[in-house]
């Protein structure tokens, strides 16, 4: 298959008629790791949720394609089947649906009818991946995210990513609520998937995660758009000077959406 290519041009996203993302452009190719950084309230999560097709968000203009296909014309499941994956900050809990059943149904949906994964192979793979991610094997039979701690939910999102092997993976604040050990485990999982067949977009508030996952590109988001891009040195620069330093450089007083420069 060709190298994955996610292309976003001048994307605008609204929530209940309030524009949150205001002209975001980004290109991600397989093998690349992009980090989108920025303070809270600058539209990072809105952008990723809208890209996945969350019902609460409306794309008002702009385009988003994956491998040339128009993502915005697709239903949520079609986007997933096209190869898009979003590790969510607050994944839903679904009581009564076991983790394993959910993952097997998802995997088979991606593989398509007639190409279902054999049950035994699935469970073997699942157990192996759970072990790598330091997830207790009993989680396979637990109901989807129900009663999981914040860190367990995050690891479960990464487990799904590892099982589903997406073409483009977006990790939305996967580091929030993780202790340093869990952070290493999650980072290892991402680094293992680092290959030409997968492109990554890592949304984070902190530079900490990027010590474990070395990004090729770093973008800073403020006021609903990318205000600066660079390589990993930009993250280090931010670490040293903070967002306030960057704001001063750019002449931004209030970085949150709704405030204008």
């Amino acid at each position: 298959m060709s190298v994955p290519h996610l292309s976003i041009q001048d994307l605008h996203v609204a929530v209940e008629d309030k524009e949150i993302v205001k002209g975001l452009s980004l290109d991600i190719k397989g093998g690349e790791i992009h980090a989108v950084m920025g303070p809270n309230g600058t539209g990072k999560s809105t952008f990723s949720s809208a890209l996945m097709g969350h019902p609460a968000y409306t794309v008002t203009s702009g385009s988003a394609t994956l491998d040339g296909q128009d993502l915005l014309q697709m239903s949520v499941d079609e986007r997933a089947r096209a190869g898009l994956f979003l590790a969510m900050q607050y994944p839903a809990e679904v009581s009564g649906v076991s983790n394993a059943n959910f993952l097997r149904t998802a995997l088979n949906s991606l593989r398509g009818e007639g190409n279902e994964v054999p049950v035994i192979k699935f469970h073997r793979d699942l157990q192996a991946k759970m072990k790598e991610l330091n997830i207790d094997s009993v989680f396979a039979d637990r109901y989807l995210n129900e009663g999981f701690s914040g860190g367990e939910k995050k690891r479960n999102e990464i487990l799904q990513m590892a099982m589903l092997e997406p073409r483009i993976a977006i990790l939305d604040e996967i580091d929030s609520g993780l202790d340093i050990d869990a952070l290493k485990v999650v980072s290892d999982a991402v680094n293992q998937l680092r290959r030409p067949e997968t492109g990554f977009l890592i949304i984070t508030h902190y530079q900490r995660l990027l010590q474990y996952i070395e990004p090729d590109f770093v973008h800073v988001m403020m006021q609903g758009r990318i205000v600066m891009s660079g390589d990993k040195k930009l993250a280090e620069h931010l670490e040293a000077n903070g967002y306030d330093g960057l704001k001063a450089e750019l002449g931004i007083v209030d970085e949150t959406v709704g405030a204008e420069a």
Partner: protein
Amino acid sequence: MAEQSIATASPLVKALVARNREPQWLQSFREDAWQAYEKFPSPKLEKTDLRNRTWDVTALSSEAVGKPRTEVAQFLEAAKDEPFLCLRDGAVVAVHVPADLAEQGVILTDLNTAVQQHEELVRKHLGTVVAAEADKWSALNGALWENGIFVYVPRNVQVQRPIQFVYEESPAGKGGRPRCLVVAEEGSRLAFAEISFVPEEGATGGIHSAVTEIVAQPLAHVDACALTNFRKGPTNFVTRRAKILNDARVDWVVGDIGDGFTVGLVESLLEGSASQSHTRVLGFGYGRQRLELTASMEHRGRSSESDIVMHGVVRGRANSVYRSSTHIQRGAADAASEQHDRMLLLNEKTRADAIPMLLIDENNVRRCGHAASVGKIDEVQVYYLMSRGISKKQATKMIVWSYLAPTVDAIVVPAFREFVAARINKELEQ
């Protein structure tokens, strides 16, 4: 007095008594019930007005056995080595009592035969749990029940395999009127599961009236399962009640999948101290279903314990009312009860009510609570499942199943369980 009762007796009662050569006490039982039936006005329930429903009771069903429908034939095949009885209208299609049960004194037979062969037992218990004078439809069944099942488990006998009752109302059935009588003697154990079928499209104006009575003597434990598939046309009345004595326990699994006009009650009378009952109700309504289903717990015994879990799924233009009622009577000190009702609406035009009721006349209650909700499927859950590639239809299916699975899993007969699962899947495909 005798003359008067004969004067008002229904010709149908007379015909039934003559057809089955029933004893005098049963004739009186039926005649008294008929009088009560005639006396009761058509009821107006809180949510369901029955005054415009007809109460046509004009004929008895045929005595011919006839050919069972496909599903019934499949159950018969699956059950051939199990304890079971199959009735079509009032006629026995097949009955099987495994030798080991017969040796232990377990009685499993149709109710007509039981009246002839086990008259004292039937006489002792018939109508003691569902009194014919209680309401109009119980009275109707009391007067005109046309066969049914009688199950009797002697003291301390443990029946390992579920006793199955398959009932079919044929198109010539004129509205079925089966009656189940289950008696579990002290310390006995059994599972009793019934499934009933009605014609795909019954005659409008007809009445289906079913009654199940369960007597659980001290320390007895009964798992009772009752599944129906009521269809549009007639009015369906179902009264299922268990009387539970000291330290005894009756658990119910009750389910209906259909588009019928149905008034149903499943009730446990927790008479004895430390008696227990756990009820699970599952409903899937579609088309123009009208359902008013009540799950009720009457606590009379000290330290009695109950819970009710009701899950209803509705689509199309179904209008369904699920009521859970716990009544802790004065004297039922230290009683405990919980209710959980959850209704899922699959589309806009459908309607469901979840009505929890707690009536507490006793000051000393250990716990008593309820939770009820009615709503559409959480779209954030659907989004989450879809974000992993699962189609909307499949995601919806998974979420609906997440509610219904524990109740379906509690159906004791595998063939019944598989049938219900297949029906649910079929309705979710629509």
